[in-house]
């Protein structure tokens, strides 16, 4: 098979160093999963910090989490779940050659991701207004616990790193949307939609854990 690759015509997305488009697709997907492993361990360091500090100061976490708005957190969780659903819908549309639906679903995903960041913006600016900043810049006096700033340092680091991932996701989805509008995706080739989808679902999974760990402590 490998020797006659120059003789046969093959589609432009099929790179010559892969046996066929199927192997190319599987390799791209596996590569993305390896990247997601590094992402999990990247966030893992912060989750470890959370666990260490919560074990040291359990009362601090119960007390400080009351400053977080459960309603906004719940809305954001639902928004992200919805965006995961529309990404999965976009992949299905690509598999079925429904080009218009790919673009519609990607468009809704971008809007939901932006809605998530807008809500996050309001949550953060409200805290800044109260003087709840990370680390030594913390000036809020509404929480009696002497280590109150520690909780919010971890909160800002974890939701901030997650927010950066959402912003990168918006960029990737916009790139996909432009390609989708040019009609570049179909059942024969949709690898970028598939692997960006995997990234987006991981961002959703990270939030699924951040939400109860910060907003639902009792």
């Amino acid at each position, binding site marked *: 098979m490998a020797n006659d690759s120059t003789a046969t015509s093959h589609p432009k997305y099929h790179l010559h160093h892969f046996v066929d488009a199927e192997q190319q697709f599987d390799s791209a997907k596996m590569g993305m999963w390896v990247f997601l492993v590094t992402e999990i361990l990247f966030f893992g360091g912060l989750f470890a910090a959370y666990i260490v500090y919560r074990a040291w100061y359990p009362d601090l976490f119960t007390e400080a989490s009351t400053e977080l708005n459960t309603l906004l957190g719940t809305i954001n969780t639902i928004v992200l779940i919805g965006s995961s659903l529309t990404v999965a819908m976009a992949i299905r549309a690509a598999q079925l050659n429904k080009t218009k639906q790919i673009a519609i679903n990607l468009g809704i995903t971008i809007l939901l991701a932006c809605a998530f960041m807008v809500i996050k913006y309001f949550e953060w600016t409200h805290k800044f207004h109260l003087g709840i900043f990370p680390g030594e810049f913390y000036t809020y006096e509404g929480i009696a616990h002497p280590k109150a700033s520690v909780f919010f340092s971890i909160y800002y680091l974890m939701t901030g790193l997650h927010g950066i991932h959402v912003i990168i996701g918006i960029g990737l989805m916009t790139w996909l949307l432009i390609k989708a509008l040019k009609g570049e995706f179909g059942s024969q080739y949709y690898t970028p939609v598939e692997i960006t989808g995997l990234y987006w*679902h991981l961002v959703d999974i990270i939030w699924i854990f951040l939400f109860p760990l910060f907003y639902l402590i009792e």
Partner: protein
Amino acid sequence: MTGHHISTYKTLLGVGGALLILTLLTVGVRYLHLPHPWAIIVAMGIAIFKASLVALFFMNLWWDKRFNTMLLLSSLVFFGLLVGFTLLDTLYRPSIIPGF
């Protein structure tokens, strides 16, 4: 390209609906004020179940090559090692270092 799993609308909407209900459930459970160890156990149990639904049906691991599932699980094993060995130190200090 043959053999790619195409999820039905029923599966996708079913998983999305389940995630929505589980989100409302985990918020609702908070107001039950469960006694100490149970609140975090139930909250993390629901979160792990939700994450599994996303991984299996949105990320397609259910139908995918098992190798990708192994990659995901290996990351969790190494995360466990990170947390486990860190706690062996931090949980057994005679006193917390004041600057921490």
